[in-house]
C-alpha cells in the first residue's frame, strides 16, 4: 500500500509537499517527513527535504523560526501560502478535467 501511494505522480514534488505540510503550522524537518509520509504517502530523504527547503527559503515561500535546539522549525510566508493556493487550484483543475474525461470514456 505504501509502495503504491508513493508512486503517485502529483505527490512527487517535494516543494509542494513541504508547502502542504507547513499549511498546518510550523514544523521542523523530522515532523515534516513524518507528516508528508502520512498524508502524501512519500517519505522524503533528508537530502531531498533540505534541498527543497533551501530552494523554498531562497524563493521566500517559507521562513525559519528561532529554535532553542538544533531542530529549526519553518513556516509558510504569505507568498508561500499564495503559491500553495495557486498550485492546489491548478491541481484541482487537472483532477476535474481528468475525472470528466474518464467519465466520458465509461459512458
Amino acid at each position, binding site marked *: 500500500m505504501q509502495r503504491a501511494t508513493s508512486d503517485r505522480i502529483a505527490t512527487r514534488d517535494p516543494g509542494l509537499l513541504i508547502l502542504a505540510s507547513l499549511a*498546518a503550522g510550523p514544523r*521542523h*524537518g523530522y515532523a515534516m517527513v513524518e507528516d508528508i509520509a502520512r*498524508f502524501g504517502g512519500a517519505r522524503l*530523504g*533528508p537530502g*531531498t527535504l533540505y*534541498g527543497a527547503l533551501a530552494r523554498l527559503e531562497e524563493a521566500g515561500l517559507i521562513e525559519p523560526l528561532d529554535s532553542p535546539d538544533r531542530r529549526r522549525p519553518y513556516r509558510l510566508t504569505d507568498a508561500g501560502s499564495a503559491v500553495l493556493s495557486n498550485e492546489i487550484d491548478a491541481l484541482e483543475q487537472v483532477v476535474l478535467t481528468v475525472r470528466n474525461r474518464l467519465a466520458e470514456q465509461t459512458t
Partner: protein
Amino acid sequence: MTALDGIGAGTSDSASAAASEPGAAPRRSPTRLASFAVRLFPDDWQSRYGAEFGALLDATPPSIRIAFDVLVAAVDAHVHPTGPRRRWPLMIERLRISELTVFASWVVLVVAGLAFQRMTEGAPLAAIAAGQPAVGWAYAAIIGGAVVSLLAIAFGGVPIALAIGRTAVERRRWRQVGLLAVPPLSLAAWIGVTLLLIGRGDPVAGDPWRIIAFLAWVGTFVAAATASTVAVSAAALDADVDAALYRRAVAPSRLAAIAMMAVTAAVVAWGVALGVTTPGALWGSEGILGTSTILTWVVVAFVMTAATAVAVRAARNTTLDLAA
C-alpha cells in the same frame, strides 16, 4: 509561547508527528556519522543548515537509500548552490560550471591523446609520419593543437588554482588544501609506477607481464587524472575566490575548446591520410598492445570527439552565462 511550541500547534496530526520523533530532546551535537554527512556539503551550506540537518540525520535510521539521498543532495548543493547565503550571482555559478566542464573534457582528451601518442611513437608509424607529408602535417597539427590547449587551460586555470590555494591557507580550510594536493600526489604516484615498471626492464613481446605492466601504467594514469580532475573541481566549487578570475578565464576556455576541435580534426585527418598513403599501416597491428591500428585510431577519435563536443557546448554556454 516559544517558536518551537508552534510545532504541532496546527493540527493534532502535526503534534503527534513532533511527539513521535526519536530523541525529542536532541543531542547538542550531531553523531559522527551525521557530522561526516554534513561535511559533504559546501561550507556556506553547512553554516546555514548543518546543525538542523545533522539533527534530522540523527533522527533518521541509516540505510543505503538515505546515504544515496544525502550524497545526491550534497552534489546538487555544490553544483547548484541555493539559499539566502549563495555566494555569487547565478551568472558566475553557471560560468564556473561551464569552465570546469571545459577543463574536465580537456583532461579526457589528454588521456585519449596519451593512447594516440603511445601508438604513433613506434618506429613504423613514426617513419611514415616522416616520409608522408600528409601524415606528418596531421601529426604536427595534433601536437600544435595540444600545446595551444595546454597553454589555454594553464592561462585560465592556474590563476584560479593559485587563488583557491592562497584563500584556503589563509582561512585554514584544510579540506581544500588537501583537495589541491591531489594532483601533485597523483602525478607523483604515476611517476613512481612508471619508474617501477622501467626498473623491471622491457618485457619481450608475448610476455603476459607486458600487458599487465601496460594496463597498470595506463590505469594509474587514468586514476590519477580522474582523481585530480574531481579534486580540483570540488575545490573550485567550494572556494570563495574573486569572481573576476572566472570572467578572465572565459577567453582561455573558448580557446581551449577551439584547440580541442583542431586536435580532434587532426587525429581524424591523420587516420584518413594514413589510410590513403599507406593503407597497409592503417590495417596493421600498431595499435595499443599490438591491437589493430584502425581500432585504436577509431576509439581515440571517438573519445576525443565526444570530449570536444562537451567542451564546445560548455564554452558556448559561457557566452550565455555572461549574458544572463
